[in-house]
């Protein structure tokens, strides 16, 4: 068995063209894609968004607490004492100033210039093309937001967002505003449930990819993972193609003549694929990190997790190598088999998010993609980079292990019976 593994690894090492393809090319692509898409996706870099936003405040904030008190007693049927207690709590939260603070904080200020205007004035400026959008804070917004948060209903009075025309920038701002509202309600609800006497709202940070309190998942990290996985798929196809060459060159027959069990050859292919894919994945991550510093200041636990995921993914790739090897042995036609392998890789690559970010695919395709080994690997990696929580890895890990078992069984079932090579 050791001889088969050693031979496969040595053969791969000696094939300099293949070695450059699977080691250097992914790193080069990570480097190129990182710069090519930095302006478009990476919010860490200077943003190209410069949005002129008019904010029209129609809310009568001074009357808000009185309005809230009435609504609590009339609509929520609370006793006066209970209503007063809630209003006292509500004194500490003022959604409108919070919204202005949010829009004028450092991160958002880089993207948006806020103009406080009357509605008519704002509409004129929109028409003249001086402004991109209007955000209207309607009358009753404060009272309605607070009431909705206390009773757990959807507010009937909402911020109104009007655009001159739909652009990437304006929809991005819309996302930011929506994010703010969600965060406002969420924080408020949490603290109400927890029974806090005073409500403090934590403002959300600006940006597109902030999720919870986790680390940011950047495009360079995305490209590192996906390029590594994509070229690992190519490596699996190469390993199987080398089997085809072994058949064509009669080396496989010579192996059979030594009375070695063909299963040793098969398992040798799987184990060598595990070793090669693991080394390739780790190489791409380490070199990309050295060049682009994609994982700055991460803990040892983080790196151990990365290595563990690479091992798991390598096993999944060995399962795929088992199927590919069995197919090529059965078909005995390198070109036709290669065609099948490329189709499978393209399919896995597309729906597993290796060619385009998985978020750009339709929902149903995303769901299918998360069942591919590379899709599962991407999910695991994304979660681990952001949260470093073992619990989030459990499900994709189990699915990957399932993939290894199923694909190995499929490979064994397809593997030609002993003594039949043609």
């Amino acid at each position, binding site marked *: 068995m*050791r*001889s*088969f593994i*050693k*031979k496969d690894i*040595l*053969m791969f090492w*000696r*094939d300099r063209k293949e070695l450059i393809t699977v080691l250097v090319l992914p790193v080069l692509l990570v480097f190129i894609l990182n710069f090519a898409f930095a302006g478009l996706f990476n919010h860490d870099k200077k943003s190209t968004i410069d949005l002129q936003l008019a904010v029209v405040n129609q809310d009568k904030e001074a009357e808000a607490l009185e309005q809230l008190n009435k609504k609590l007693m009339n609509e929520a049927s609370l006793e006066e004492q209970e209503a007063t207690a809630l209003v006292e709590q509500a004194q500490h939260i003022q959604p409108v100033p919070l919204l202005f603070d949010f829009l004028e904080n450092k991160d958002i200020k880089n993207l948006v210039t806020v103009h406080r205007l009357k509605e008519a004035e704002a509409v004129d400026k929109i028409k003249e093309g001086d402004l991109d959008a209007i955000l209207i804070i309607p009358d009753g917004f404060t009272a309605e937001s607070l009431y909705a948060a206390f009773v757990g209903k959807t507010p009937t009075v909402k911020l109104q967002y009007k655009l001159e025309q739909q652009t990437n920038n304006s929809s991005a701002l819309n996302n930011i505003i929506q994010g703010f509202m969600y965060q406002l309600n969420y924080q408020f609800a949490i603290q109400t449930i927890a029974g806090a006497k005073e409500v403090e709202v934590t403002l959300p940070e600006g940006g597109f990819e902030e999720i919870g309190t986790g680390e940011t998942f950047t495009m360079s990290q995305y490209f590192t993972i996906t390029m590594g996985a994509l070229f690992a798929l190519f490596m699996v196809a190469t390993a199987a193609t080398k089997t085809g060459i072994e058949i064509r*060159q*009669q*080396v496989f*027959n*010579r*192996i*059979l*003549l*030594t*009375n*070695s069990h063909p299963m*040793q050859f098969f398992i040798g292919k799987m184990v060598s694929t595990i070793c090669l894919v693991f080394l390739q994945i780790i190489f791409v991550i380490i070199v990309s990190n050295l060049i682009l510093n994609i994982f700055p200041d991460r803990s040892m636990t983080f790196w151990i997790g990365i290595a563990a995921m690479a091992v798991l993914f390598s096993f999944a790739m060995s399962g795929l190598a088992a199927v590919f090897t069995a197919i090529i042995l059965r078909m005995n036609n390198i070109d036709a088999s290669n065609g099948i392998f490329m189709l499978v890789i393209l399919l896995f690559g597309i729906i597993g998010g290796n060619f385009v970010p998985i978020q750009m695919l339709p929902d149903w395709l995303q769901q299918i993609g998360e069942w591919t080994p590379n899709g599962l690997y991407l999910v695991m990696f994304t979660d681990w980079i952001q949260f470093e929580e073992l619990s989030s890895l459990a499900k994709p890990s189990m699915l990957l292990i399932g993939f290894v078992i199923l694909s190995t069984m499929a490979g064994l079932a397809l593997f030609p019976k002993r*003594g*039949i*090579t*043609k």
Partner: protein
Amino acid sequence: MLEAIHLSKNFKGKKAVQDVNLYLGHGESVGLIGPNGAGKSTTISMISSLIKPTSGEIKLNGVNTITKPGEIRKILGVVPQELALYQELSAYENLHFFGSIYKMQGKELKDSIEQALEIVGLTDRQKDLVKTFSGGMKRRVNIAAALLHRPEILILDEPTVGIDPQSRNHILETVRMLNEKEGTTILYTSHYMEEVEQLCDRLYIMDHGEIIAAGTKAELLSILSTEDTFKLELSKLDGNFIERVRAIEGIRKVEAFQLQMKIIAKKGSNLISELVHLADQQHIQIINFQTETPSLEDVFLHLTGRTLRD
């Protein structure tokens, strides 16, 4: 020792090998000759247990090797027509790999590799990658890989195709040495008649999937033993002389071209004195006189109507 009995193989309904009977005695060197596509490689693949025959039996010392392929694989070395080697590995690495999957290890493996390299004369190039070798050297490594486990039977399928004369001689010498000194039983296929003539005690001639003749070299040559062929080169040649030669008893055919004549006569006709006498009468000087012995190539031509390389 090894016998193939009524061996046949069909590929998609097409008969590649038909009713082949072949026997290899211990220590023998047997040749299997035939043109390309005659069915030699298919026969060898069946004997070496790589493909199953459609019908027939293969027995090694009475044991059926079709049902028990392990029996023959243990004692068989096969040198395939193609280079069954890893081009990206060195000669040593190739031999180490094949030796280790023959379950050899340690000193035994090392000694086997050294011996095999020595036999094929590649000890000094063992560390070089196979892909850097010449065609002849690659063929020698191909042979070395089949010798690692010291096989009792060695099957060589056209081992000298496409190589230089020096490497060819080296391979032929190696095969002869293995047979004569090591006692290895040889089955040698080729479409170079002179190689099998040099190396083999017995021959099987194969064409269109069938054995069309078998026997020792003398036995095969006796197929053409009813005629003698003479070639004459003369000082001058005229129609009268040709006619008088044709009239000699026992002459079957006379061909004349410029100052040369080819005469085919019944074996044992003893024509030499008559021809000399006739030439003297006509004042013609015989400059050169040759008696041609038939070759195995002539036997093949006689049996199949075509040459081996057609």
